[in-house]
């Protein structure tokens, strides 16, 4: 059976095609302003990669903040449910997920049978999410994908004390003016985000085999800091950004069965 999963995120859109248990193809592109159009583009691309047509797909699952705007008939699922399914697909022995998205961040805990035991979502505040990190990259004029690596080269621990992203930005600008080395500021920013994420994970007492997903999981600086703060070894999947979409595809398959 062929199923597709769409994760319509605020920053990026992900689509996965699943053939029974196997990932046939996936696509990640940035969402832009039109969620529906992005989903369609991603779907078209992924179908082409897989060499199939939309009619071949028996069922579609969707998740993410834009799931209601996806232009396909689909089984909708919350990120909590889809992330869990996706994480367990890759790591059947895992017992939790940390998912850092563009505007959202969540921590999920499940038991050995795969039942969701607990979860925590961030509030509307953007600190501790991808958008915050992007804003900081702009303020510091570094490439987002290089931030993590640079932060690990810091020479001194400094603190970004403002929890609010707006205040944090002005705090960072004033550090730049005071000629604080960029790497140190980056380290401070990563610590600040990590402490928010750890706060969420702590609320549900998350520990053990925890998978970190979402595009940010590729940021080595953040993962390192999270491991330090949580005293853990987070599991980073090869394609952390498509785990949610994969979960949506699994959800679609389950419902079809």
């Amino acid at each position, binding site marked *: 059976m062929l199923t597709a999963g769409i994760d319509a995120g605020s920053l990026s859109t992900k689509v996965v095609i699943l053939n029974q248990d196997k990932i046939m193809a996936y696509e990640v592109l940035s969402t832009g302003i039109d969620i529906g159009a992005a989903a369609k583009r991603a779907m078209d691309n992924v179908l082409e990669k897989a060499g199939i047509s939309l009619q071949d797909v028996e069922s579609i699952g969707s998740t993410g903040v834009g799931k209601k705007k996806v232009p396909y008939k689909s089984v909708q699922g919350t990120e909590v449910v889809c992330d869990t399914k996706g994480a367990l697909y890759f790591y059947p022995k895992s017992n939790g997920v940390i998912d850092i998205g563009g505007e959202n961040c969540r921590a999920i805990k499940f038991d050995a049978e795969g039942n969701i035991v607990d979860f925590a979502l961030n509030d509307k505040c953007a600190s501790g999410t991808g958008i915050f990190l992007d804003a900081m990259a702009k303020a510091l004029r570094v490439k987002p994908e290089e931030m993590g690596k640079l932060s690990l080269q810091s020479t001194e621990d400094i603190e970004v*004390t403002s929890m609010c992203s707006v205040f944090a930005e002005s705090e960072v600008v004033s550090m730049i003016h005071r000629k604080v080395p960029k790497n140190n500021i980056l380290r401070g920013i990563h610590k600040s985000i990590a402490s928010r994420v750890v*706060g969420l994970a*702590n*609320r*549900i*007492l998350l520990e053990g085999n925890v998978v970190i997903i979402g595009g940010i999981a590729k940021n080595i600086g953040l993962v390192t800091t999270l491991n330090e703060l949580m005293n853990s070894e987070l599991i980073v999947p090869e394609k952390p950004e498509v785990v949610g979409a994969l979960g949506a595809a699994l959800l679609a398959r389950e419902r079809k069965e």
Partner: protein
Amino acid sequence: MGTLETMKDIFNNPNKIIEEWKKDGKKVVGHRCMYVPEEIIHAAGMLPYPTFGTPEPIKKADSYFQPCACEFVRNLFDLALDKKFGFLDSMVLCNTCDAVRHLYNMWDTYVDSVPCYMVNNPQKMYDESGFKFYRMELEKFKKLMEDLSGNKITDESLKKSIELYDETRRLLKELNDLRKRDIPAISGSEFLRTSMASMLMPKENANPLLRKLIDEVKNREIKNADGPRILLTGSIIDNPTLIELVEDMGGVVVVDDLCTSAKYFWYTTKPNNDPMDAIVRFNLERTLCACAHPSEDRYDYLQGLIREFNIDGIIYFNIKYCHPFVYESAIFRKKLEEEVPTLTLEVDHSLSGLGQLKTRVQAFIEML
């Protein structure tokens, strides 16, 4: 080393006190808030240990308390979860505020290594029926302490303990009086360290040290005494950083109505043949904490301090989510403003956000 330094050293390393005390196998009973009578613990041959927090950020406790619980209490619970209070043979709390009540529930449920007990006290002062209620609770507590220590508490031993603790209070007050002068003999932060060290130490050791200290500093004059004279009040402040901040901004902190300072030693026990009754009345014949009723009592007491210490300005340090002091400061604000300028500050127990605080304190002191 001068005695002021000795006090600072004790304040910085309270663990030494515990080690010393425990050498002979004697027990230590932790407590929080003023309605747990230390004299009863002491009369049973144990060391009453006032639990203080640390400025460390909170880790595990946030999984248990919601972030809107008093930060001091969350901090204490964090330390308890982290087994930092493992040296205690028991922990005793009392009925002061919802946060402490929750601490009791949490401690009792999640901290297995140290048993926790709660002394129930009335929140209404001067009420004979409340005295009766509290007395019943204290009798139970006394029995508990006897069982824990294996020592009988007699009227004689209790009277002796009261005398000893009263002597500490008298000495601290005598030292505090040296701050009334135009140029105080001891600074606010020095005093807080001394007073907290005295609270932590066995009083048998604290009293001679305090006598020596009074002797050493009685002719001393602190530097930088030109600024406005400040009265500090508010939630529990267990770290001199905030006082130092006021001092750095040019304020002269001359008296602190804090659990770690004046509230501890301002009054002594009235002579009474029945020592249990003496303790009951010592605690219930005055309103020292914002949690208790009537409030007018505290207002009169603050007014007394303003006059006695020639105060130019009052600063309320309210720890975030400390409900009793948020109400008190809002209720007293207008009345106090008529006497002296009053600044109400919300502070983090973990001492973050000091930059903003500094700006506000500075503006206040410049205004004075």
